[in-house]
């Protein structure tokens, strides 16, 4: 049993230029670890969507990726507005992204559904006005 490895990234809010950097870095690290390409892809898609969400809705946050023997776990924490209705938010096409964000090509309402689709486990913990923590797992 190897010690789990933890990678931590600060996700800069309101900065679309650097959005996606953490997922590219995670991809690099997983490649070095020798994780199979399909798992890498699933992790990086889920991570990318989560990162973009934090930039759009929550003015950034912290992303943690924990690699263990069995899985890659992604924990995204922000102190944003929170999600009022999680069930609704999980529906494809539902979006609360503002117009300026949509004009950049984001906000199609596919973020959370994609995160669920590409992971084996996903849990959303959210309190309106306090923030959201999303935990996802991709098993080896």
């Amino acid at each position: 049993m190897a010690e789990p490895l933890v990678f931590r990234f600060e996700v800069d809010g309101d900065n679309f230029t650097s959005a996606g950097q953490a997922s590219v870095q995670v991809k690099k690290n997983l490649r070095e670890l020798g994780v199979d390409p399909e798992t890498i892809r699933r992790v990086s898609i889920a991570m990318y969507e989560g990162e973009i969400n934090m930039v759009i809705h929550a003015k950034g946050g912290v992303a943690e990726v924990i690699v263990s023997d069995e899985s890659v776990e992604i924990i995204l924490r922000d102190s944003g507005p929170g999600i009022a209705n999680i069930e609704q938010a999980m529906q494809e096409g539902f979006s609360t992204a503002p117009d300026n964000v949509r004009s950049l090509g984001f906000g199609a309402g596919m973020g959370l559904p994609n995160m669920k689709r590409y992971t084996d486990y996903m849990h959303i913990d959210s309190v309106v006005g306090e923030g959201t923590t999303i935990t996802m797992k991709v098993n080896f």
Partner: protein
Amino acid sequence: MNTYIHSVSLDSSKCTGCTTCMKHCPTEAIRIRNGCAVIDSERCIDCGECIRNCPNNAKKSICNSFDEIQNYKYKIALPAPALLAQFDNLDNAGFVLQGLLDIGFDEVFEVSKAAELVSAYTRLYLQTEGIKKPVISTACPVVARLIVLRFPFLKDNLLPLLPPMEVAAAMAKKEALEKHPELKAEEICTCFISPCPAKMSYARNGFGSYKSEVDLVVSMSEIYLKLINVMDREKACDAVSQAGRIGVSWAICGGEGSALLNDKILAADGINNVISVLDQIEDGNIPPIDFVELNACPSGCVGGVLTIENPYVAKNRLHTLRRYMPISLNSISDEEYIPKESFISDIPSYKPLNRLSDNLGESMRLMSQIQALRKELPGIDCGSCGAPNCRAFAEDIVMGNADRNECIIAYKELIKKYIKDYDGGETVDGK
């Protein structure tokens, strides 16, 4: 074991160990050892950035010499379309083709002719149901290798056809054998006139189980010097180009894409831009597009390190030359026109770059050591230790390829400490 043959070499008498190439290498394949640059051939993708950036001209590409065509009875030149962009005020491609015959080739088969066939095939292929999109071009050998090494998930997106260089070589040989039944196959040589060293690597290594039909690769700069001595543009020339605008435009970024007569294309140039586009495609983070054209060199093949002219001037010249050309001279009416063997049968197996160990647990242990060590290093990525940045240095130390004392910042701290200890240790009584 690594059996890949590269085409970049180092003239150690010229290398000053300045770290420039190491800093520019997109795959962190270079280290400075004993004052000299060393390339890790497993990581090298033959992009030529080190040759492009070396201030001392110490990095060279290994190509065949032009004289080697003399070892064959029947010599076929395969000029890359970028060759036409090297000449000023060229209004007829025939002058260059005639020049190639005059310097000793028996025949010229333009790669731009094969490129037009590849374009025609791609147009048909894009209409096929069920293919994985975006389709990615296989023309740039650096990109094909990069996908195999780093983006295995995208390998099914590759166009299932070999690059125009190979299509041209296969067609040229077949035609020559038909025209000259007295010749044996081994007496014929196909000689590609190349803008970059990556094509040389491709010809030597093939792709998957495919063996290249290109026998020799000679650098464009060597051929250029021979050509300018024989090209006479006052005289009428017999050679006539067999390609149009579409074929010639493959030399510049966007050319291959625009030949598809489709708006949903993306064309990128420059190795770092190529990598970020591939990263985005892999993450599913691009708008719906049909075709992606990627060129490792800035501006496309005209930006290759074996060309003579500045890529922007070269581009302008091609625009001028194109004005006098028909759109395209080649199309596939019956699909058999592209040799069967030019279709990709298998993709080289996935060989991940920079894998720490074959065992996940061991890799995790090594990576946590690297992370811990990295925090102790200064983080200024100065390169003096011989690694491109502190993270790569930490990795080298953990993997047993570097000594921690090579960090000059850490060494300086150590000396400072000695001096302090020395000052504090000896009591000097005011004198």
